[in-house]
C-alpha cells in the first residue's frame, strides 16, 4: 500500500501543496503586518509633525539663525490633520486664529534676498495669538502655555481610552510637555547639533509603537500609541489564513487523489488483464482504447510481447505434441504386437514376424530420439561438433555414392559437379546434412527425374547446392519447411516418410557452423536447397582473384 505509486503520488502532492501554501501564507501575513505598521507610522508621523510645527511657534525666534520654519506647509498639514480627526469638520472658531491672519504683504523673492529673516518673521507672525517669545532662556523653559494645542488635538491625548500620547523633551532630555497618560519613556538623544537635518525615528517597545521627531532646535517630540489591538487583529488574520490554507490543502489532496486514481485506473486494468494472461489463456489481449496516450503505447508494446510469447508457447506445444505423437506410434506397435503374439501359442514364423516388427519400431524410435536429442543439444548451445579441416567436395561425393542405389531404384539421374573446397567443420554432421538433402531430393522426385549436387565458391563462401526437377514446393509452404515435424506433402504415408526432423536438423547443423541454409522452389519445376558455409580466413580469397 505504502509503496504503491498512487500513495506516493498523493504524499508528494500533499508535501508540495503544504510547502506552497505555507510560503504563501507567511508572505501574506508578513505583508499585511507591514502595511498595518506603515499606516500606524504614517498616522503617528502626521501627528508628530503637527506637534512639531506647534512647538516651533512656541519658540518662534531668537533661537535659530538662518532658519525659517516652513510655515505654509505646517498650516496645510495642521488643517488636514484636524479635518481628518474631527469627522464633523472643523468649527469656525477653532480655526479662526489661523484664518484671521491678515494677508501679509507678499514677499517677493527680491525682498527675500534683501531682507533679513527676522523682518519677514515679524511681518508674518505679528498677528499670531501667541506673542512672539523672548529669546529662550536656556534654564527656564517658557512653555507654560497650556493652550499650545487646539482643543480637538487635546482630546486625542486625554482620557484613559485616548488612542495617542505624546512627550516633548528639549535637547537635554528635560520634559517640556507630556500628555496625561503617556507612559514612562526613556529619553534618547537624537540631536546632532546645529545645521543638522530634522531627524525622525520609529521604535516599538512592548505593545507600543512610537515615533520621535527631533527638530533643528533639538526639541524631541514623541508620539506613540498602543498596538495591542492591531497585534490581536493581525493574529486573527493569521488564524484565518491558516484555516483557508487547511481548506485548500484538503481540497487539493482530495482532488489530487481523485486525479491520480483516475490516471492510474488504466494501469490497474492493464495489470489485471496481464495477470489473466497465463499459460492457459495466452490469447487475451490488453484493451487498446487509448492508443495515443503513453499507456496506450505501453499496452501496444505489451500486446506485441504477448503475441510473441503466445507464438513461442504454441510452437513449443505443437513440437512436444508432435514429438510425443511420433514416439507413441512405434511404441504402440511394440506394445500391441507383443500383446497379440503372447496371447496364445504361435508358430515360429509368427514369432519371427513379431520380432521383426518390434525391431523396426525400436529402430524408428531410436532414430527419432537421436534426432530429438541432437536438436536439443543444438538448442541448448552445445552442438558438440568435432571441428576439423575437411574437403567439402569429398563429403558431398561420399553422400552421392551412399545414395546412388536409392536413386537408381527410382531411375533418377544423380549428377555431381564439385570443386575442392577446404572448410573447417564436423565431417559426420556435414555429411548428414548433404545426405539428408539428397535423400529428400530423391524421395520427392518423380521417376526418371534428375538431381544435381554442386560444390562451388561464391563471394567468399562455400556453397553446396542440391537441386531436383521434381514437383517443387508450394510457395506458401516454403517458409515452414525447416520447422520441426512439418511435412509438405501430407499425402505421404508413414511407410515412405522420414521423421519430419531432417531439414530442421540440417538447419541447426549449418547454423552451428556459422552458415545458412536456404530453399528456392518453383512448383512443377523443381527445388534447390543451398547450404552456405564460411570459408576459413586463409582460403577466404578467391585463388583466381588474390
Amino acid at each position, binding site marked *: 500500500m505504502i509503496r504503491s505509486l498512487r500513495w506516493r503520488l498523493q504524499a508528494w502532492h500533499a508535501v508540495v501543496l503544504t510547502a506552497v501554501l505555507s510560503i504563501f501564507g507567511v508572505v501574506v501575513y508578513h505583508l499585511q503586518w507591514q502595511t498595518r505598521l506603515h499606516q500606524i507610522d504614517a498616522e503617528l508621523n502626521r501627528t508628530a509633525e503637527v506637534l512639531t510645527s506647534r512647538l516651533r511657534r512656541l519658540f518662534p525666534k531668537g533661537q535659530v539663525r538662518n532658519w525659517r520654519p516652513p510655515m505654509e506647509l505646517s498650516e496645510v498639514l495642521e488643517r488636514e490633520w484636524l479635518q481628518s480627526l474631527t469627522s464633523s469638520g472643523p468649527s469656525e472658531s477653532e480655526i479662526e486664529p489661523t484664518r484671521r491672519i491678515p494677508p501679509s504683504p507678499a514677499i517677493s523673492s527680491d525682498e527675500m534676498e534683501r531682507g533679513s529673516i527676522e523682518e519677514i518673521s515679524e511681518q508674518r507672525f505679528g498677528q499670531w495669538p501667541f506673542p512672539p517669545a523672548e529669546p529662550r532662556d536656556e534654564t527656564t523653559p517658557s512653555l507654560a502655555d497650556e493652550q499650545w494645542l487646539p482643543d480637538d488635538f487635546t482630546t486625542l491625548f486625554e482620557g484613559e481610552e485616548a488612542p495617542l500620547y505624546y512627550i516633548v523633551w528639549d535637547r537635554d532630555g528635560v520634559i517640556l510637555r507630556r500628555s496625561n497618560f503617556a507612559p514612562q519613556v526613556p529619553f534618547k538623544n537624537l540631536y546632532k547639533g546645529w545645521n543638522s537635518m530634522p531627524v525622525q525615528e520609529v521604535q516599538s517597545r512592548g505593545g507600543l509603537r512610537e515615533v520621535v521627531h527631533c527638530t533643528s532646535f533639538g526639541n524631541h517630540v514623541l508620539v506613540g500609541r498602543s498596538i495591542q489591538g492591531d497585534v490581536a487583529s493581525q493574529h486573527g488574520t493569521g488564524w484565518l489564513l491558516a484555516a483557508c490554507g487547511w481548506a485548500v490543502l484538503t481540497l487539493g489532496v482530495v482532488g489530487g487523489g481523485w486525479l491520480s486514481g483516475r490516471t492510474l485506473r488504466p494501469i490497474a486494468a492493464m495489470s489485471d488483464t496481464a495477470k489473466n494472461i497465463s499459460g492457459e489463456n495466452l490469447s487475451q489481449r490488453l484493451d487498446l482504447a487509448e492508443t495515443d496516450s503513453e499507456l496506450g503505447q505501453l499496452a501496444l508494446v505489451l500486446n506485441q510481447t504477448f503475441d510473441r510469447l503466445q507464438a513461442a508457447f504454441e510452437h513449443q506445444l505443437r513440437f512436444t*505434441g508432435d514429438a510425443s*505423437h511420433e514416439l507413441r506410434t512405434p*511404441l*504402440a*506397435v511394440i*506394445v*500391441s504386437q507383443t500383446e497379440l503374439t503372447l*496371447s496364445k501359442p504361435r508358430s515360429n514364423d509368427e514369432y519371427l514376424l513379431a520380432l521383426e516388427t518390434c525391431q523396426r519400431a525400436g529402430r524408428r524410435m531410436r532414430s527419432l530420439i537421436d534426432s530429438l536429442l541432437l536438436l536439443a543439444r543444438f538448442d541448448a548451445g552445445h552442438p558438440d561438433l568435432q571441428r576439423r579441416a575437411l574437403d567439402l567436395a569429398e563429403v558431398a561425393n561420399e553422400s552421392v555414392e551412399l545414395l546412388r542405389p536409392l536413386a537408381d531404384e527410382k531411375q533418377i539421374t544423380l549428377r555431381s559437379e564439385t570443386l575442392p573446397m577446404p572448410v573447417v567443420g564436423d565431417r559426420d554432421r556435414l555429411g548428414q546434412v548433404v545426405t539428408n538433402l539428397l535423400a529428400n531430393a530423391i524421395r520427392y522426385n518423380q521417376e526418371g527425374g534428375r538431381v544435381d549436387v554442386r560444390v562451388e565458391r561464391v563471394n567468399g563462401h562455400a556453397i553446396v547446392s542440391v537441386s531436383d526437377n521434381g514437383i517443387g514446393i508450394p510457395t506458401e509452404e516454403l517458409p515452414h519447411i525447416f520447422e520441426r515435424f512439418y511435412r509438405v506433402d501430407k499425402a*505421404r*504415408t508413414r511407410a515412405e516418410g522420414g521423421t519430419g526432423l531432417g531439414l530442421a536438423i540440417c538447419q541447426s547443423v549449418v547454423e552451428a557452423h556459422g552458415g545458412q541454409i536456404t530453399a528456392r522452389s518453383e512448383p512443377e519445376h523443381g527445388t534447390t536447397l543451398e547450404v552456405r558455409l564460411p570459408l576459413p580466413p586463409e582460403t577466404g580469397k578467391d585463388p583466381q582473384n588474390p
Partner: protein
Amino acid sequence: MRVLVVEDEPDLLRVVATTLREDGYAVDTAADGEDGLFKAKAWEYDAIVLDVNLPKLDGWSVLQRVRTVKRTPVLMLTARDTVADRVRGLNNGADDYLVKPFALTELLARLRALIRRSVGQAVAVIEIGDVCIDTVAKTVTRNEDPVALTPTEYALVELLAMHRQKLVSRTTIYDHLFDEEDDSLSNLVDVHVSNIRKKLGRDFISTRRGQGYIIQG
C-alpha cells in the same frame, strides 16, 4: 461383426487387424484417409477404428464426412492425449477414444461395448429361451451346457441375437460376417444356419423365405 481399421502405420495396422480377426471379427483395412472414407461409405460396418493422423485426409475429416451418411460407431485412435483433443474428438461425433499406446484387450472391450450400444443392447450376456450368449467370452450355453460353435457360427448367432426380433437379410449377414478378402463361395450362409440349428435347436432361428433370418425369442 465386421470392422474397418484405418491406420497409416503398417505394422500397427497389421497387428490391430490380426487381433480383431482372432477375436472373430471380419476386418477390412485402409492405410490412408481417402481409402478409409471410401470403404466406410461403401460398406455396412459394425464399427470403425480410425487413426487421427492420416495421410491424404486426416481422421477428423474422415469422421465428419462419414457422419453425413452413416451412424456407424467410430473409435478414434490417437497419439494426442490432451483433454482438448479428447473433447474435440467426442464433440465431432466420435463414439469413443483410445490413446496410443493402448492395450489390445481394452481395444476389444471398447469395440464390443460400442457395437452393443449401437444396437441397443445394454448387457454383455444375451439370453434367448434356454440359450445364453456371452459376448465377452464368445461362448454359447444351452441349459447351462456349453455348446461348441465355429467362429463363423458364433458370429452369426451373435449377429442375429443382437438384432433379435428383427429380420436380418442374407446380404446383411454377408456384409457383417465376411471381410473383403473372404471367398464368399466357401461361406454359404445356409450351411452355417443349418449347423447352428443342429446345435441349438430347430426353432432357434426362423427362416423368412426369400427375405432372411430372424431370432424370435
